[in-house]
Each structure stands twice: as C-alpha cells, then as structure tokens.
C-alpha cells in the first residue's frame, strides 16, 4: 500500500516503513539502544530527504522513549536531578546544533555534515565497543571476572559540586553539562537521541551506577529530542508526522520482540553484534563519501 507523505512529498510503501520500524525496533529492543542512529541512515537509503529524515526521527525518538521512561520511573531508576542538569546542557547543545544545521543547509553542505558526523561517531563508538566487548568475551571464556573499581579522575576536581542522590554522586555540575551539550548538538545534527554516546559517557566519565544510567539517559533524551522536534518544526517545517507514526508503530512492536530475543542472549555476545552492526552502517556511509558518486550533481531548493 503506497502512502503519500505530506511533508516529505514522496510516495512510499507503508509496509516498507512499518517493516523498517519493526526491524530497527527489534534491534533496539535487543540491544537497549534507541535505534535513531540506524533509522536515520535507513531513511536516507529509501529516498526520504535528509532534512525530513533527521527532524522526523527526533519526533519518533520522543515517542519510543516515552514508554521506556514510564517503566523506569516506576522502578525508580531515573536520576531526575542528573537528568535535569544534562538537560540544561542538552537544550543549549540542541539550539547550537540547529544553528549549525541551518547555516550549513544554506551552504549546501548539510548532507556532508550529517554523513560525516555519522561516520565519525559510529566509527569511534562501534570500534571502541567492538574492542571492549571482544576483550570481555575472551575474559569470560577464560573464566576470570572483571573487577570494577571506581576511580577518582579529573571530573572530581572541578568546582560547582552538586549532590546527585539517586546516583550516589557528589560531583561538579560542569561535566554533566558538557555531556548534555555534546549530546544536544548530535541530536540536532544527526537526528539521534544520543544514547549511544550518553550511556558510555555517564558510566566512564561521570561514574554513574549502571542501574540508573539507562533510565536517566532516556529521561534526558525525551526532553532534548522534543525540543529538537519543535525547533525543526518551526524553522524548517520538516517534521513528517505521518512518517513518524508509521515508523513508530512498527518500532514499538519490534522492540517487544527484540527484548524477548535479547533476554536469551549473553550480554557480551549482544555487544559484539551491536558493535558489528554499528561498524557496518559506518562503513556503508563512509564508502559513499570516499567512492566517486554515480551522480556528481545534486538539486536543492534555490533562492536564498
């Protein structure tokens, strides 16, 4: 069944969108990631204009994170105070990101920026995750358990200390603010929630306990992506609600299936798989930039 998307102004198969949503949903359910970093490139591949893909994906992430946060709130695994601090940074970052996005859009470099951002971040995160999880996998085969000791690093020597009770932390507000800004910029430019950056940053830089990390990151992501959606909707008019809903319905159902598969697999195996997938998307996008494109010319709206 073909459906004409009112804002993207293209006609696509509704089942293809439901399927894409479902596929990414399965993966995000399995790995506990938002899946925005996979969905946005997939939307590029099926011919949705990049600007619409990025803005709509932000809208979809709000929705897909919403039910997740409700569950975490019930289990009290959300550090609201930390979330709000991250959020303040996130809003500033998203605002900055939108300015950069719109400036580069006028210069015709927005596709390049989005793709470069993807290649760099997917490459770094995928690479690190792959190395780390392969090591963990080898260690667990050797029968040794990995000891985790909280280290005191530079984060603990900064001013403006705050108490984060749910995380059991007494640290400066500056690092969470910086993490928030970074994730906000990425959310605006890449159309992702930023969970794949936020989660490692919370664990390794801020030293938060793992049990509050996912809930807090989801809490922060909702607000940041909601703000991003509003910015895109009011300045670029590129949020396609029909597209978002179709992806979402597929995504929610897929996530439920994915969660069930995820339970049956070992954590290390899951991480290796996720890392390989992230690297595969990264390589595909990287090749697009490196290899000579079949069409050197591209058309954009004119008249500045």
């Amino acid at each position, binding site marked *: 069944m073909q459906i*004409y998307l*009112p804002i993207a102004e293209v006609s696509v198969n509704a089942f293809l969108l439901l399927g894409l949503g479902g596929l990414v949903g399965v993966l995000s359910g399995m790995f506990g990631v938002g899946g925005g970093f996979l969905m946005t490139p997939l939307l590029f591949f099926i011919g949705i204009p990049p600007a619409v893909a990025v803005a709509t994906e932000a809208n979809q992430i709000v929705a897909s994170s919403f039910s997740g946060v409700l569950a975490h709130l019930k289990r009290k695994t959300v550090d609201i105070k930390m979330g709000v601090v991250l959020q303040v940074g996130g809003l500033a970052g998203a605002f900055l990101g939108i300015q950069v996005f719109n400036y580069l859009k006028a210069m015709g470099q927005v596709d*390049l920026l989005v793709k470069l951002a993807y290649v760099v971040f997917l490459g770094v995160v995928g690479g690190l995750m792959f190395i780390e999880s392969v090591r963990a996998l080898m260690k667990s085969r050797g029968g040794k358990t990995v000891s985790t000791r909280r280290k005191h690093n530079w984060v603990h020597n900064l001013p403006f200390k705050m108490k984060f009770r749910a995380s059991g932390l007494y640290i400066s507000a500056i690092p969470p603010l910086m993490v928030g800004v970074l994730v906000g910029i990425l959310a605006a430019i890449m159309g992702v929630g930023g969970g794949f950056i936020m989660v490692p940053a919370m664990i390794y830089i801020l030293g938060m306990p793992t049990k509050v990390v996912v809930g807090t990151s989801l809490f922060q992501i909702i607000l940041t992506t909601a703000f991003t959606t509003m910015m895109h909707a009011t300045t670029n008019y590129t*949020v396609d609600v029909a597209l978002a809903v179709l992806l979402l319905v597929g995504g929610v159902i897929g996530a439920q299936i994915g969660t069930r598969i995820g339970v049956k697999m070992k954590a290390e195996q899951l991480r290796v798989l996720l890392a390989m997938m992230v690297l595969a998307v990264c390589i595909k996008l990287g090749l697009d930039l490196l290899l000579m494109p079949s069409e*050197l*010319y591209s058309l*954009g709206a*004119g008249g500045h």
Partner: protein
Amino acid sequence: MTRFLTLLATLLALALPAKAEEIVAGLSQNAVQITATFVGSEILIFGAVKRDTPAPEGDLGVAVVIEGPSHPITVRRKEKRMGIWVNTDAVEVNAAPSFYAVSTSAPFNEIISEEVDRARHISIPESIRIFHSEDVADPDNFAEAVIRIRENDGLYTMEEGGVRVTDNTLFDTHIELPANLTEGNYRARIYLTRGGDIVSNYVTNIDVHKVGIERWLYNLAHEQALLYGLMSLAIAVAAGWGASTFFRVFFRS
C-alpha cells in the same frame, strides 16, 4: 470515444469562425488531487484538427506539453577534496519546471523547427532557464544535470511518437503523472504544426493540489508550525504509548 470526438470536432467546426486549420482539444481531467494514497495519475489528452479547406501542404504534426510549476533551484556539483566527495561549485537555476512531459506525433525535430522551439520553449532543454553566472566555467553542464536527474526521477519525459493521429484529423495521447508530484498549476499546451511551423495551439490548465488530511497537515505545518510541532509530539507519544500498552496487554506471555 472516436465517435464522440468526431461529433465534437464537427460541432466546433460549425460554431467557430473560419481559419485555415485549427486545433480543438480536451483533457480527461482538469484537476489532480493528491490524497494520502496517491500513486500517480494518467491524463488523457484528445482533440481534433478543424479545417474548412482541404488539408494544406506539408506534414501534420502534433506536440503535447504538460509543464509543472517552475521553481528556482540550486544545482551543486561534488568534487573530491581531501579524499572525500564534497559539494563545491553551485549554480542558481532561475526557473526549472518541477514536471515536464512532451509527447509528439513524430520525431521532435521533424515537426518543430529549432527556431520555433527556441521561441516557444517546447523541448525539455528549452524549458530550463539559467541566467549565466560567472561563478562557474561550464553552466551548461549544470543545466544538463538538472535534466538528467529529473529524467531519472521520471519527472521529465519526452515521448516521440506518443501522440496517435488518425486520418490527419483526430489525435490522442496519454501522459503519466508520477507519484512524487509537486502541487501547483500545471499548464497543458497542444501545438499543431505543418512543416516545422506552428499553425495553431491550445492552452489549458490542470490544477494539482493536496486534499483531505494531506492538505490539512501540510498547511498546518507551514502556517501553524508551533501547533503542528506540539501536535506531532502528542500524536507520536500517544501512538507509541498506545502501541506498547496494546502489545503488553494482548501478547503477554
């Protein structure tokens, strides 16, 4: 259909003032509505040649042009910089139609001379206007790129021999409108030619617009952007929450 056309031609022949040769034509539809399930449309163009005197010398030709609204566009070219392909040169094309379909009764060059084409902007390359800029050395390559890209997207088509002419009097053709149409006023032009020159022409409009929910969403997104943004968020949250609740309740295992 043919009998109807003959009748139409005869009636019009009686009603209109005399001229050596004149074209009368009609379209199967004068409005195209883009709905949520729009998959493209087909327009049938038919008509007849009305003449009071025996057919004059020279070969008869019919050319049908359907042209979408023109918008300025920016054409960018990629170049390899520091190992990656980056947009570098850009040319502003002042006007390029969003859709352009030409259908003719014979090879284009045989029925329309070059001078006539240039004066009336009939062929695809003639429909694009670039005010030559000094920014790039080869603006023609950019104009060719517009045509190439839009031809690949099925937005620019040229079908030589697409118009069927019966008994040197009746003609008909059909033109496909693709699913990725932009809104606006589409102009249909029909030319009757003899020996490369235009002897008569007929112009009419086709109104292409979104309707129903498509129309409503598009207008809301552009005119009430804030409200639309909030609505998008609310709908998405409700849909996401609803779907997951539904799943939890009905598929609990």
